[in-house]
């Protein structure tokens, strides 16, 4: 988003502008309907969500019982709480994000500053890996993880996310490092730095914005991911929150206040990141289309 823009002209309100604002507000309200549903339902008591005549009405008060139920479960109805699953998501997402960003940074550095023969073929082959439907590698993946004793473990899923995160993290860092002037690299080499020295002394210290973009991107993606998690982690006590949530919503229960509270809990971490660091989030988003 370019900073070089002509100064804002003051625009008077005329029918066209009123029309534009009306449309924008209308769309904003439509976009917020699911948020309304989430918040309103999660603040209701069980009796209130059962009252179908008031399905869309605000709650009668701030009832937090649904959040208690979503967190600790309702044992007498056989419903598990999501607290352990939220922790599992953290155990999964944080290491996988860090490891895959570091790997991506190294790859991006090599591919942008040390173009070796064959790199032009390797890179697109690598990128293809981020577009494939993961169904097409799922059967060998589950077999392999079981064979190396990582089946059904969070460690196994971390490995999976690190591996399939290579293309996107490499891509973002490669494009990011391409902007770093080669002069800086040359200067460091004249000072006697080797490959890793150049990375460590020149590029890594400049990498913060790149890391922020990649970390946000990977964190959001891994937190939100479902297919790998549901195929690899079968035991309820190791499943991340997306899988536990879908199991909760998929069972024939009527506790919609609990489900909606659980949905909010699952959504909050990535939403917070988005609201606080939206700028970097958008950069990752645009990078995902190969050329931003």
């Amino acid at each position, binding site marked *: 988003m370019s900073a070089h823009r002509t100064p804002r002209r003051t625009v008077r309100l005329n029918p066209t502008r009123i029309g534009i604002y009306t449309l924008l507000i209308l769309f904003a309200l439509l976009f917020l309907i699911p948020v309304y549903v989430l918040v309103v339902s999660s603040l209701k008591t069980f009796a209130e969500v059962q009252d179908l005549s008031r399905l869309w009405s605000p709650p009668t008060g701030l009832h937090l019982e649904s959040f208690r139920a979503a967190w600790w479960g309702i044992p007498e109805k*056989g419903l598990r709480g999501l607290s352990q699953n939220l922790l599992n998501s953290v155990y999964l997402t944080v290491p996988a994000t*860090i490891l895959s960003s570091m790997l991506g940074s190294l790859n991006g550095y090599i591919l942008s500053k040390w173009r070796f023969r064959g790199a032009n073929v390797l890179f697109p082959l690598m990128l293809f890996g981020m577009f494939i439907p993961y169904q097409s590698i799922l059967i060998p993946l589950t077999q392999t993880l079981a064979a190396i004793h990582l*089946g*059904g473990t*969070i460690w196994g899923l971390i490995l999976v996310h690190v591996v399939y995160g290579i293309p996107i993290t490499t891509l973002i860092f490669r494009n990011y490092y391409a902007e770093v002037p080669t002069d800086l690299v040359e200067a460091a080499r004249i000072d006697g730095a080797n490959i890793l020295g150049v990375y460590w002394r020149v590029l890594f*210290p400049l990498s913060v914005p790149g890391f922020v973009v990649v970390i946000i991107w990977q964190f959001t993606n891994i937190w939100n991911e479902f297919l790998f998690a549901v195929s690899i982690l079968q*035991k309820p006590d190791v499943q991340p929150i997306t899988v536990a949530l879908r199991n909760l919503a*998929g069972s024939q229960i009527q506790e919609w206040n609990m489900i909606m509270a659980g949905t909010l809990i699952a959504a909050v971490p990535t939403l917070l990141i988005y609201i606080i660091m939206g700028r970097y989030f958008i950069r990752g988003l645009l990078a995902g289309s190969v050329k931003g």
Partner: protein
Amino acid sequence: MVSKRFWYVGMAALIMASLLLAACQPTAAPTQPPAPTATQPPAAAGKLEIFSWWTAGGEAEGLNALYKVFSAKYPNVEIINATVAGGAGSAAKAVLATRMQAGDPPDSFQVHAGHELIDSWVKAGKMEPVTFIFKDNNWLDKYPKGVIDILSYEGEIWSVPVNIHRSNVLWYNKKVFADNGVTPPTNFDEFFAVADKLKAAGVTPLALGDNGIWAATHLFESVLLGTMGPDKYRGLWTGETDWNGPEVKSALETFAKIMGYVNEDHAALSWDQAAQLVADGKAAMTIMGDWAEGYFKSIGQTPDVEFGYVPSPGTKGSFIMLSDSFGLPKGAKNRDNGIAWLTVCGSKEGQDAFNPLKGSIPARTDADRSLYDVYLQSAMDDFASNQIVPSLAHGAAASEGWVTAINDAMTLFVANLDVAAAQTAMAQACKTAGVCK
């Protein structure tokens, strides 16, 4: 520069934090089972991991009662109750498959007796036969031959049944029937006559809740049996009855006709919501397994007072059975405790503790009748005297793959009621399953 250093330190801290977090993850690593030694006294101590999808209601209470019986006998064994909720057992089956493939089986697991166990696990060589438990405890004459047959494959018995459920039961609202002057139908001609009368009176004749498609398959197996009788029905699962033949066609046509008498919102309901329609008098009848009785009782109704029960149309004298059973996987970590568990499951004491709570009848014939309610007693009588045939929808009659294919065919059939297409699909499913040629 300050901010750069700050970020650098921050990154390092993040990395450290991530490694720490990773390090304190719960490890679910499968530990190697200790080799069972002959000197070890049987089931003296240690652990026992029991895997099931009984997480709530009467099923969970029944399971706990079984645990109590076990703990009284083996007080030093710690029971690990590994349950997986959701999807009428489909979630649990997926967990089990992964654990079995990874060589991490529980000591014993719940499984529908019959082809579900045999085709999935026995043929794959993952189970130990339990014939010796039956012999050691002299159970072979305590269980009906029909049950032993369903449990057997290549001369061995492969699981211990804890209960029997009946699938072909028509439940009806007694008040609605009395108000409209109708009596429970015994065959499909009577059924449609009753249904027309009820429909004219503004009552939904038959409640169906096939949100999870198995309820439609469940209704279909009753229709199959009701139109062709027990011998032809059994032949469907051995390839002796032709899926392209007139009997199956007639069953499908009857099913399509029935769909004209069910509640319009059947695809949105679950089986218990359909039962609720009957309880509320909005619908007159529903065809469901006898766990429906447990549901009616849980909402305060009494058998023979608010609701009545008869065999589904045309199936008097036949009993479609399904059974929950427990098996002994190869490589169980606490094999001796697993055997002790199976011995409890199959004992009279165990079955009489479990079944009154679960709302099913014992698989043994020598149980204490006084523990069971009026419906269950009638089911026990029928079980002892009727022709026993296996349930399709609940894994006794056909392999899981075959059941899945029939469920898929039913998904389409319920939506379009195309008899010819459904018959072709079912004939093909039998071929794919390797039973028909």
